[in-house]
């Protein structure tokens, strides 16, 4: 390779797209490092505070596509204060200043402002794709600037963001000349949309493959949209509580029949059964179905719908489908790869049989040989079921089980679920992500440390007995990147046992555990390359100034992560960086 000119080597590198591989290439030699970094187009930053934009730009001057993640995962469950951080603005400022030819920006759990969006829209002439997931801090005004100024915009994908809807005319802001859209998702917007503007936009976007509208788009508008975009592959519909009249129904069905390319269906925040049945003609083509927001769909309608979906690979539903419904899924959806079953009753008020149990899980594992990812909320579980699931599905990559009641044992034997989860990690040699729940002792962590060799992310809640539990995991799981723990009795001994372990991990989250301020301080002293953040909404005064006795005070929330740029400057008062 030394005799090839750089351009040839660069061309060869072009075929390598995975981040891991490109990172490895850059470690081979100085010259490869240089060629790689100068030609790198896509960069993924899993923690926006691990590095700063200036260093990023310095290393990768040809950057075109950037992915940034901000808040830790548990922010999804309101465990992280809103003002914690994760601001995208400094990144956009730096990229704009350096005149980076940015084309794609993907953000997750970051704070985005209208100002940021405006700056973005004006700074990058070739900007093509904006994907925002679980972000907040902006309004439809920011969207208006993106629509108006990004002449080459192809993708605007807004997933589960908190957006202040000014009910303005942001859709109108797409110029008439804008015809390049391939993907538009505004399902998380709460307000009314300018339907005429939407229809015109869709009509002049022949390459539009993915369209996800919000609740406020009524049935007749949906029908018209589908009629002028029969090429759609991915459709997210609105909210249709009321049964359509005969004529509307016929028109809807006719429009749907024309969408022969449709493979993915979502939305349905409410849907009357007749409406749902209008989609029967295309069910057989569907590979992805998300009905997890439709709390009102009756079980039998759901089952009837799914019976037509023989090619389904991904299914997101509510537990109102029941074990019987899952049995139908198991016998119908032989191509199923990913299943998510969400709880429909969050307050556990009902004592009836609407939820799913271990029966449904076992049925799925027996019926769907290609299943590799599961997220399953249920009321009860048994070791026997988990052992059976492990035997049926050794190919799990992601296994997330959430038993709704914490500390709940195996309901037939009253034992802990250590053996069940142990069977899962032992059988599923490729397991990368695991969430455990129910009654669990240190033993389950012994199993995890012993068998889960590929495990990268582990979520623990209300589990374990002693520090040994956490130590088994830290010592055993060589590929661990993200460890998040809440309400478990792990303390300083586990936290401090192997500080260098955190060099190999992206982050560690511990809340309502046994770690103390003293322990965290000691960690911070021994590991200057870590940011050790203490989050405590009660205390506004500086934790560092409190007297010795408080070293024994338990830390409410601890979030630590490796970084090459030291303590961040934008932390709010409730966050102390040790």
């Amino acid at each position: 390779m030394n005799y090839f000119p750089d351009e040839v080597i660069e061309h060869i590198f072009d075929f390598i797209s995975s981040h891991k591989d490109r990172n490895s290439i850059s470690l081979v030699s100085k010259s490869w490092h240089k060629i790689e970094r100068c030609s790198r187009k896509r960069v993924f930053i899993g923690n926006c505070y691990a590095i700063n934009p200036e260093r990023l730009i310095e290393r990768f001057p040809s950057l075109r596509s950037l992915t940034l993640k901000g808040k830790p995962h548990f922010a999804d469950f309101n465990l992280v204060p809103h003002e914690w951080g994760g601001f995208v603005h400094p990144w956009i400022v730096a990229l704009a200043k350096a005149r980076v030819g940015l084309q794609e920006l993907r953000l997750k759990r970051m704070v985005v402002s209208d100002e940021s969006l405006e700056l973005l829209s004006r700074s990058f002439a070739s900007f093509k794709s904006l994907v925002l997931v679980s972000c907040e801090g902006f309004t439809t005004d920011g969207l208006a600037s993106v629509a108006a100024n990004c002449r080459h915009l192809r993708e605007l994908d807004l997933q589960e963001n908190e957006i202040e809807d000014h009910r303005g005319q942001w859709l109108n802001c797409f110029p008439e000349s804008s015809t390049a859209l391939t993907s538009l998702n505004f399902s998380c917007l709460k307000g009314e949309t300018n339907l005429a503007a939407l229809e015109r936009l869709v009509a002049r976007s022949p390459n539009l493959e993915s369209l996800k509208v919000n609740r406020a788009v009524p049935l007749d508008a949906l029908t018209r949209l589908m009629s002028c975009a029969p090429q759609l592959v991915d459709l997210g519909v609105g909210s249709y509580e009321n049964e359509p009249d005969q004529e509307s129904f016929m028109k809807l069905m006719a429009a749907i029949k024309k969408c022969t390319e449709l493979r993915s269906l979502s939305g349905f925040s409410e849907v009357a059964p007749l409406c749902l049945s209008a989609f029967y003609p295309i069910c057989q083509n569907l590979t992805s179905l998300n009905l997890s927001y439709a709390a009102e769909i009756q079980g039998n309608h759901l089952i009837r719908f799914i019976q037509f979906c023989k090619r389904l690979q991904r299914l997101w539903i509510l537990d109102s489908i029941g074990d019987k419904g899952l049995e139908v899924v198991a016998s119908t959806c032989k191509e199923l790869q990913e299943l998510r079953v969400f709880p429909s009753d969050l307050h556990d008020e009902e004592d009836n049989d609407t939820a799913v149990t271990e029966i449904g899980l076992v049925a799925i594992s027996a019926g769907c040989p290609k299943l590799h990812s599961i997220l399953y909320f249920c009321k009860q579980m048994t070791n026997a079921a988990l052992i059976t699931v492990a035997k049926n599905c050794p190919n799990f990559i992601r296994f997330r089980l959430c038993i709704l009641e914490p500390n709940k044992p195996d309901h037939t034997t009253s034992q802990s679920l250590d053996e069940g989860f142990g069977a899962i990690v032992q059988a599923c040699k490729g397991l990368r992500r695991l969430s455990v729940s129910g009654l669990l002792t240190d033993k389950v962590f012994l199993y995890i440390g012993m068998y889960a060799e590929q495990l990268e992310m582990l979520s623990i809640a209300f589990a374990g007995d002693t520090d040994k539990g956490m130590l088994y995991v830290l010592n055993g799981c060589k590929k661990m990147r993200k460890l998040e723990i809440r309400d478990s009795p792990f303390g300083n001994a586990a936290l401090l046992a192997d500080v260098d372990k955190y060099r190999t991990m992206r982050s560690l989250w511990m809340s309502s555990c046994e770690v103390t301020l003293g322990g965290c301080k000691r960690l911070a002293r021994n590991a200057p390359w870590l940011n050790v953040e203490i989050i405590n909404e009660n205390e506004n005064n500086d934790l560092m100034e409190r007297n010795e006795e408080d070293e024994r005070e338990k830390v409410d929330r601890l979030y630590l992560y490796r970084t090459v740029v030291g303590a961040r400057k934008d932390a709010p008062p409730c966050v102390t960086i040790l």
Partner: protein
Amino acid sequence: MEKGGVEHEITELRLGLPGRDVTEKMMKKRGFTEMIMTSSGSNSDESGVVSGGDVEKINESPAAKSEVVGWPPVCSYRRKNSCKEAWTTKVGLGYVKVSMDGVPYLRKIDLGSSQGYDDLAFALDKLFGVRGIGVALKDGDNCEYVTIYEDKDGDWMLAGDVPWGMFIESCKRLRIMKRSDATGFGLQPRGVDE
């Protein structure tokens, strides 16, 4: 801030197979119910966030389950946008949940939009697509089903006994049971309440 003995026991090394001493373990563990009590304001210094702290008050209170922050781990966007979550705000407007034995889903019904028991009977029939539920409201003994409701005091009462106005004010939710199951249920006898 005194911590003391109980906490020490929580971190104590325990040998032995899991499954033994489960109840003992559950009490000594920083248990779920302790979490509820610390988060539901038993210690006024703490915010709503679950934290270590007070282990003195262990009080079994199933109704408080939903107060643990961030549990179950459903992301806040989904919580806000899931219809059933929205139910809890609708209850005050006359919507009550209706469950029917043997049917794997819940419906809701707006009592405020019914004029009386006849109306309600008709609506329930329509809701579940089963004839005869409504008949039970009026006809007492001739029907396969009984319709019962939970009142403000948490008691289950047979629907149809009290005047309509009183009924819609006190009804928190409805349940349609098979008559055969109802006998052992523990319904309040007629006329016991105002």
